[in-house]
């Protein structure tokens, strides 16, 4: 896995972070208005958090398999917690929530770790989704029952099931790419995060018309198109690091960008509904773990299944 492709991606990450940090420091010395100063302070806080997150992620990738699974299991735990903390739950949901935190999340990631594909894909959508409504009904209160169960199931689906498709990329068997799946995972995460960042950058440069002003005032058509095109181009250029031809890599990048955007927008709608701006404040400048991973959640399962359908042998 210490091949040229991984080194290229690593170089891209370090380059992008350095560029962002330098720009942030230059802006810090040149801004004058208080409102611009606030944006620059946020940018610099974001950059500091970016370095730490990138370091943790890259180290987990280099250490390989199990470490990556544990990292994402922990992320799911934190994201699910952020979601449930902000969602009003009933006193009678207590036991069901306990099961989610301490049985369903570990079991789901254990299935990823032992690469039991068949059970992993149905464990939450079938088994957990039978268990949770049953457990809540057993607790014996019916007020807002449908609302309560769907909130917990939704949280589980997005923050645990969808997110676990990222480390699940490690279990795909792709011809002539054996033992390199960590590179594929790196490629996916890099694209999703680049897409976020580039949409933000393009949005600030040329963004005018808002896409969904009520749900997410920061998203503009300019930012969207600019971000998607640049990320797709970078994805195509990174093809040597992946099992894909440049054109295939471009197509998959485009898919990841679109799904990332949908995930981001959906989670913005959820936050609006819950009446908050960020899911928490554990990542300075970014918000919560789920704020950083929202675009991953929708892109991961689609990316996984498309790659599996067209490229996997096993």
């Amino acid at each position: 896995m210490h091949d040229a492709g991984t080194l290229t991606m690593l170089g891209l990450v370090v380059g992008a972070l350095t560029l962002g940090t330098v720009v942030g420091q230059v802006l810090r010395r040149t801004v004058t208005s208080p409102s611009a100063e606030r944006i620059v302070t946020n940018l610099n806080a974001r950059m500091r958090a970016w370095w730490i997150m990138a370091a943790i992620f890259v180290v987990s990738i280099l250490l390989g398999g199990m470490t990556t699974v544990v990292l994402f299991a922990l992320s799911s735990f934190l994201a699910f917690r952020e979601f449930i903390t902000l969602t009003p739950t009933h006193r009678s949901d207590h036991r069901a929530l306990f099961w989610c935190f301490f049985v369903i999340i570990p079991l789901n990631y254990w299935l990823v770790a032992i690469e039991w594909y068949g059970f992993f894909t149905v464990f939450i959508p079938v088994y957990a989704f039978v268990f949770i409504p049953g457990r809540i009904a057993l607790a014996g209160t019916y007020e807002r029952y449908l609302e309560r169960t769907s909130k917990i199931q939704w949280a589980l689906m997005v923050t645990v099931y969808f997110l676990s498709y990222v480390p699940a990329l490690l279990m795909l068997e792709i011809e002539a790419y054996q033992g390199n799946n960590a590179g594929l995972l790196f490629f996916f995460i890099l694209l999703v995060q680049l897409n976020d960042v580039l949409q933000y950058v393009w949005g600030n440069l040329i963004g005018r018309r808002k896409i969904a002003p009520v749900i997410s005032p920061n998203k503009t058509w300019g930012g969207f198109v600019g971000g998607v095109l640049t990320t797709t181009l970078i994805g195509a250029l990174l093809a040597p690091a992946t099992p894909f031809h440049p054109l295939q890599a471009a197509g998959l990048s485009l898919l990841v960008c679109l799904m990332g955007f949908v995930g981001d927008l959906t989670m913005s709608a959820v936050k609006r509904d819950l009446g908050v701006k960020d899911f928490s404040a554990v990542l300075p400048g970014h918000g919560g773990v789920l704020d950083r991973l929202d675009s991953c959640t929708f892109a991961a399962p689609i990316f996984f299944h498309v790659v599996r359908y067209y490229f996997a042998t096993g």
Partner: protein
Amino acid sequence: MIARLLTGCVRFLCGCNARWAELPVAGPRVYYANHTSHLDSLLLWSALPAQLRRSCRIVAAADYWERTRARRWLAREVFRAVLIDRTTVTRRNNPLDHMLAVLDAGEALVIFPEGGRSDRQVVRDFRSGIWHMARRRPDLPFVPVWLENLSRVLPKGEVLPVPLMTAVAFGAAFHKAADDTKEIFLDRARRRLLALRREPDPCTTPER
């Protein structure tokens, strides 16, 4: 060691973030908080800076904490709790004297003036203990502490906790005013505690 392990666990599981209205100060003072869960005292204690934690003692009910050997060991050796006899209060065995002795020795106290755990967000009227402390030690600072979301982490009647995010809000310290009566003082203390609630707080409004 065990205390550090426990506070570490609580900090990880409850993602406890502390908000301070003013810089934390050591020395004799009374932290008083709302009480909804068995984890309350542990969480409040974990939220304190480590050097303050050592000289901060939780006031707890002896009838509960003396009941089994494990509890007694936890209360005495790990937390150094000030155990108060709720059942046989006589002039000679006045819990107030024990608490004042601790304060006079330069340590801080954690107390739950509602007298017991309450359900959800209803903060019951305060018992008169803190008034008597204020009356006997007029210079004693009182610090309100609002514990958020604990009733969802470990509600009354449950044994297993759910690791949701919690917050601990420390308010500004205040003293007894010269012309305070018991009612005025207790009411002010209660209102200062309630004022620390974050509004609107999606975490603590279960029924919308």
